[in-house]
């Protein structure tokens, strides 16, 4: 879900949401997840990337470089700033090599870039999930004009040429706080994908026995929504959110690639890939390293999302 089509106007697609069912215990789900080798590896990869992001300042102390400082000795200015020594300048000093043209340490740029990418993607996920769940539940449970209004708004946002529009908006808006702006823009076009699924599930829950029982016992509508409906959507929400993170990581990178994302000198993976576009023939590692991290992050989140979905599906079937 919430994987916008890769190269167009953000029409979403992806596998269906998990069947909603009796909520499995969170601990059991995690246990099941870690028992699956693929998922365990993915969790491990994400753990490493996350740790690298969190520990970036510590790593800076360790390597002696930060994400901004230039190292003119690592590049050959007579070759246009190509890293010395081949292999993108990988050495004991620079574990992932250096950026051509200025000699900034790639490892630190990757680590700080992870902070930026993950912070934006996770914030956007939290925001869209919250908004999507609240509005989706409202639409599904209350129906009527609330549903009509919200559904029209979702239809509208999903028919909107989102990628084009995001770029136009981001290039028009003055500097400001770029990461916050990115989170907002991603969220405006992202919430309907969560809301649509949640709405469908809430709609089907509305007439189930336990909800009707609560209603019969005189519980208020809000109480029903929060005590009966939402807990039953937990599985769906977790899966949607897990699969939303990689789509935002990818979209943020795409926007940075197109030059409307995070502004320099703040590092971001998409921006690094964009700068590598002119260097790929002479310094392929400059393209491959950020590409590999972006790829690994997206794959890991997707694998975890897939496995969560199948665990919850099985739980529902049992």
């Amino acid at each position, binding site marked *: 879900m919430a994987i916008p089509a890769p*190269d167009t106007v953000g029409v979403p697609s992806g*596998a269906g949401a998990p069947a909603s069912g009796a909520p499995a215990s969170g601990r059991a789900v995690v246990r099941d997840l870690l028992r699956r080798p693929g998922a365990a590896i993915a969790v491990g990869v994400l753990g490493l990337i996350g740790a690298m992001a969190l520990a970036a300042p510590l790593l800076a102390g360790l390597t002696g470089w930060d994400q901004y400082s230039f190292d003119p000795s690592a590049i050959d200015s007579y070759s246009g700033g190509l890293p010395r020594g081949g292999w993108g300048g990988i050495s004991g000093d620079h574990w992932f090599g250096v950026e051509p043209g200025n000699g900034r340490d790639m490892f630190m740029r990757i680590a700080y870039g992870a902070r930026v990418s993950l912070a934006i993607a996770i914030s956007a996920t939290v925001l869209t999930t919250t908004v999507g769940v609240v509005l989706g539940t409202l639409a599904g449970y209350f129906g009527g004009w609330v549903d009509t209004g919200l559904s029209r708004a979702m239809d*509208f946002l999903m028919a909107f*040429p989102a990628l084009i529009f995001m*770029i136009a908006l981001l290039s028009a808006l003055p500097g400001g706080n770029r990461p916050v702006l990115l989170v907002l823009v991603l969220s405006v076009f992202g919430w309907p994908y969560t809301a649509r699924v949640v709405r469908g599930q809430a709609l089907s829950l509305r007439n189930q026995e336990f909800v009707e029982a609560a209603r019969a016992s005189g519980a208020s509508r809000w109480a029903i929504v929060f005590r009966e409906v939402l807990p039953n959507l937990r599985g769906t929400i977790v899966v949607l959110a897990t699969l939303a993170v*990689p789509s935002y990581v990818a979209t943020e990178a795409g926007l940075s690639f*197109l030059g409307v994302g995070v502004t320099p000198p703040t590092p971001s993976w998409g921006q690094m890939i964009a700068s590598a576009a002119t260097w790929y023939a002479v310094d392929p590692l400059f393209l491959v390293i950020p590409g590999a991290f972006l790829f690994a992050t997206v794959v890991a989140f997707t694998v975890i999302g897939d496995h969560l979905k199948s665990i919850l599906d099985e739980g529902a079937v049992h």
Partner: protein
Amino acid sequence: MVGYLVRRLAACVIVLAVVCVFTFMIFFWFSPDPAAQICGKTCTPDRIAQIRANLGLDQPFLEQLRVFVSGLFAGRDWGTGADAMHCAAPCLGYSFQTNESVTDLLIDRLPVSVTLATGAAVLWLLVGVLGGLVSAVRRDSLWDKGVLAFGLVGISLPIYFLALVLQYLLVVKLGWLPFPRAVPFTEDPVLWFESYLMPWVVLAIVYAAMYSRIVRSQVIDTLEQGFVRTARAKGLQRHLVLRRHALRPSLTPVVTLFGMDFAALLGGALITETVFGLDGVGKLASDSMATNDQPVIMGVTLLAALLVVVANLVVDISYRFLDPRVRRGTP
């Protein structure tokens, strides 16, 4: 049925109208002044005012919107005397940068985007749907694992990364393909094919990956549903079960998705066209955004929205004819 059609059409028009108003609002309130940009380096306040007047940018928001919308339906006239130009409906205005009619620009650029989208769609449907199908039927086989891996890798590769890597390998390193460019078919069919091959493959990989995942999970869901199990219990052969019972319900959502994806690509594969330098609508979009050419951005946005909305409508209507369950009004 007529009532339904009217309601759906009205909804489409509303969506397009809102897209139009929204885009206009962004330009009106947030965008840098295009007049200052056209005015150039030796600008004076007088000339800015004059350019603003020429472009109609001095008008209030609603007036500008009215002029634009009436141009869509009735055409517009520009200039006076020998400079007079008539822009026939549907008139999307003139590019600030090149003074060309936006409608003509879009028509010029569409063939490239259509070629790109169609070729890629053929490839990705073949690979994605067949792959997903076989994968679902032969669950846990080596084939299934391969398709799953392909699906995962394909959806996780940023398209611009894939494009750059393939271009490096196939064109720069191995020299198997020429650098892509939009060669018309009529000019040189062989070169046409060679030029488009890599962009097709790049787009198709990413979409095929997505479709194989969707088809696989849909078919598996369907195969586990009651009516399919019953059919199989009744002793129907496996492939007959698949063909008669499982295929149609599984592929219905794929058709919806395909309609939207394909329509969206017709409106321009922004990244692919930009990376490969193909002069389609997507490249037009990114170029016009790079120069803040508002009428063109507006035109591209509206075209993209129109295509998606129409695709949606066509898919919905065809369901009402094709799928008995929808016709009866059950979800």
